[in-house]
């Protein structure tokens, strides 16, 4: 009566190919990626870290409102992007800017949301990266829909749908996994378990043996992977993508990693966790681990490392330049995209705002874009002055 579930259960320990000291793990259940792939990933990791740190600095300089950093989670970010083909789709959360950049999105455009110029700053179709999702887990059913549409048309698209450990508690997570399973949709659900949802630790989020154990309840294979092990991530996510592309249906992958910084710059993590916990995770840094692994095995030359660092600097400079440039957002945009054609009501409202602006431009001392009441008053005719 019951289909045998054993193949749907994750391994007891997360898959690890390279240990925290950079040494290859014996008898790992997945073949190691080749050195070229690992080297490429190291470059991406170095850029990823640099981007995280640059964005963080830009918040302090007031160029970004806030930044939810993936510092410490870069291996997950890089792997999520690297295992995909051009025709595939990525569904990132607010924390997955680096993954979006990994697929080719310009980091300046990716951070438009947090700079405040507009919501989604990039064209989702250009690199097949959905807009950053903020309402938690809501992007997961979208991922299923994109995948199912591709399946109906016979296209080989695979969709990488990302969420956090906290996001797994939302109803949409459940509904998306179930739909994906029932429609056998080529979606890889990739949960970055970074141990916290803002202040709430995993132990208060779930009592499950692991988040990957949620898969079996949908008939979806669950897998667990060391989220700071670049090699293991490439292997596990790569296999999941290949399986989905081959018609194997969805998969749930949980990466065990850690949010090294506060939820965002605005958060005060000392209220809910110890520095010692953070320090312990610093020991498991994904970049150090991969660097050691490649260096110890003679694969990484120092010139290569220097080149990676230079490339990371170049990207960081691009981000700095982009975010330091002030774009004057156009209020006409507020009305232009609510519908394909503005409704009569929106045309009226746009005209009102335009009228306010034209009056304001006549007024010295008021700046377009300055916070506060939006515009100059009409001359108060009729007012008894």
């Amino acid at each position: 009566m019951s289909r045998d579930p054993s193949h749907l259960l994750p391994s007891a320990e997360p898959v690890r190919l390279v240990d925290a000291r950079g040494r290859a793990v014996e008898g790992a259940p997945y073949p190691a990626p080749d050195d070229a792939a690992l080297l490429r990933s190291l470059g991406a990791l170095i850029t990823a870290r640099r981007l995280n740190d640059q964005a963080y600095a830009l918040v302090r300089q007031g160029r970004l409102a806030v930044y939810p950093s993936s510092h410490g989670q870069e291996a997950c970010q890089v792997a999520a992007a690297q295992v995909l083909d051009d025709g595939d789709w990525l569904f990132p959360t607010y924390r997955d800017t680096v993954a979006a950049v990994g697929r080719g999105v310009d980091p300046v455009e990716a951070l438009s949301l947090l700079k405040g110029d507009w919501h989604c700053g990039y064209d989702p179709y250009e690199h097949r990266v959905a807009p950053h999702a903020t309402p938690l887990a809501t992007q997961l059913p979208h991922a299923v829909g994109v995948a199912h549409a591709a399946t109906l048309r016979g296209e080989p698209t695979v969709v990488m749908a990302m969420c956090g450990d906290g996001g797994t508690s939302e109803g949409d997570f459940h509904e998306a996994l179930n739909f994906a399973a029932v429609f056998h949709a080529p979606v890889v659900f990739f949960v970055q378990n970074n141990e916290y949802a803002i202040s709430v630790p995993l132990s208060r989020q779930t009592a499950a043996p692991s988040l990957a154990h949620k898969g079996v309840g949908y008939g979806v294979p669950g897998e667990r992977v060391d989220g700071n092990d670049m090699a293991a991530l490439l292997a596990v996510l790569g296999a999941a993508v290949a399986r989905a592309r081959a018609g194997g249906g969805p998969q749930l992958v949980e990466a065990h990693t850690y949010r090294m910084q506060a939820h965002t710059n605005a958060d005060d993590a000392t209220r809910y966790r110890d520095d010692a916990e953070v320090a312990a995770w610093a020991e498991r840094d994904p970049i150090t681990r991969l660097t050691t692994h490649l260096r110890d095995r003679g694969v990484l030359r120092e010139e290569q490392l220097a080149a990676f660092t230079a490339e990371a600097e170049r990207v960081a400079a691009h981000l700095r330049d982009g975010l330091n440039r002030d774009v004057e957002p156009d209020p006409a945009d507020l009305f232009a995209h609510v519908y394909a054609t503005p409704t009569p009501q929106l045309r009226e409202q746009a005209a009102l705002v335009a009228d306010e602006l034209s009056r304001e431009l006549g007024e010295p001392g008021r700046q377009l874009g300055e916070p506060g009441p939006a515009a100059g008053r009409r001359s108060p005719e009729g007012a008894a002055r």
Partner: protein
Amino acid sequence: MTAVAEPVTAAARPAAPVAVPAPPAGGTVTLSMAQALNRALRDALAEDPSVVVFGEDVGALGGVFRITDGLTADFGEARCFDTPLAESGIVGMAVGMAMNGMRPVVEMQFDAFAYPAFEQIVSHVAKMRNRTRGRVALPMVIRVPYAGGIGGVEHHCDSSEAYYAHTPGLHVLAPSTPADAYALLRAAVASPDPVVFLEPKKLYWSKGEVELPSRAPGIGTAVVRRHGTDATLIAYGPSVPVALQAAETAEREGRSLQVVDLRSIVPFDDETVCAAVRSTGRAVVVTESAGFAGVSAEIVARVTERCFNALAAPVRRVTGLDIPYPPPKLEHFQLPGVDRVLDAVDDLQWEQ
């Protein structure tokens, strides 16, 4: 036996399939609203391969109201299919399919069972085009068997239009005739924007002439259903027949009432509505949904803002009471009826 496969209706309704198997090439046919909707889906599926229909029980069963009757049989599983029972999942999946080249038409089984999808509708369906600066459009339709008047038990008769109408980024339509049901559903499916399509349950079995292909006006257009000179009744969906009946009764009493059928709640046709109100100087808004902060309030507010100097009396409202929808035996107290409408008309300061 009713066509409703739900613990819901007291009213006995024809259980017969509503599908219209032999579509005439053109001309005018008499159809129930249910049949007109079925026909609209059929024609859309036939014309555009990107149209897909899905939801709960829409496949083999043809939907609890049989609006999707025969679609799976005729267009195949890929074009019309059942989903697992999860409305947020249904709408969320539709968002993804619309992002990826399809035109999904999803069915929510009843108004109240669309509420689980509220976050998807408000935070994604309504906002996607805007947040992506027009790059990602969501051509999708959310069909909702809407409102009451069928003796349904709790949670089966809500009127939910205000929630959607208040949410910028959605179009909200409510037909009152089979011809409009056909025309507006076709327009909704063809629209580049998401549409919440409200199908008055109590009118599913009402019949009317439907011209094919339709030449009815599209989204954003109200029509004057009946001309009159003394006061204007403004209604949409299930309230339109009530308004028309009231106008008929009033005529026998020597008062000439005009009836405007909004058809499209968003966008709102200020021009037609205001012209009608100005021509009579008096108006009553009739809606089945609760009055407080509902669409009826918006109509009163905007008509007053725009036509104040032409008004001989405040615009009055005849709406559902501000209570949870009553049980079947008390339902008639909730529904705007002819008498309440005429009472409101009487209150329009005729003595001045």
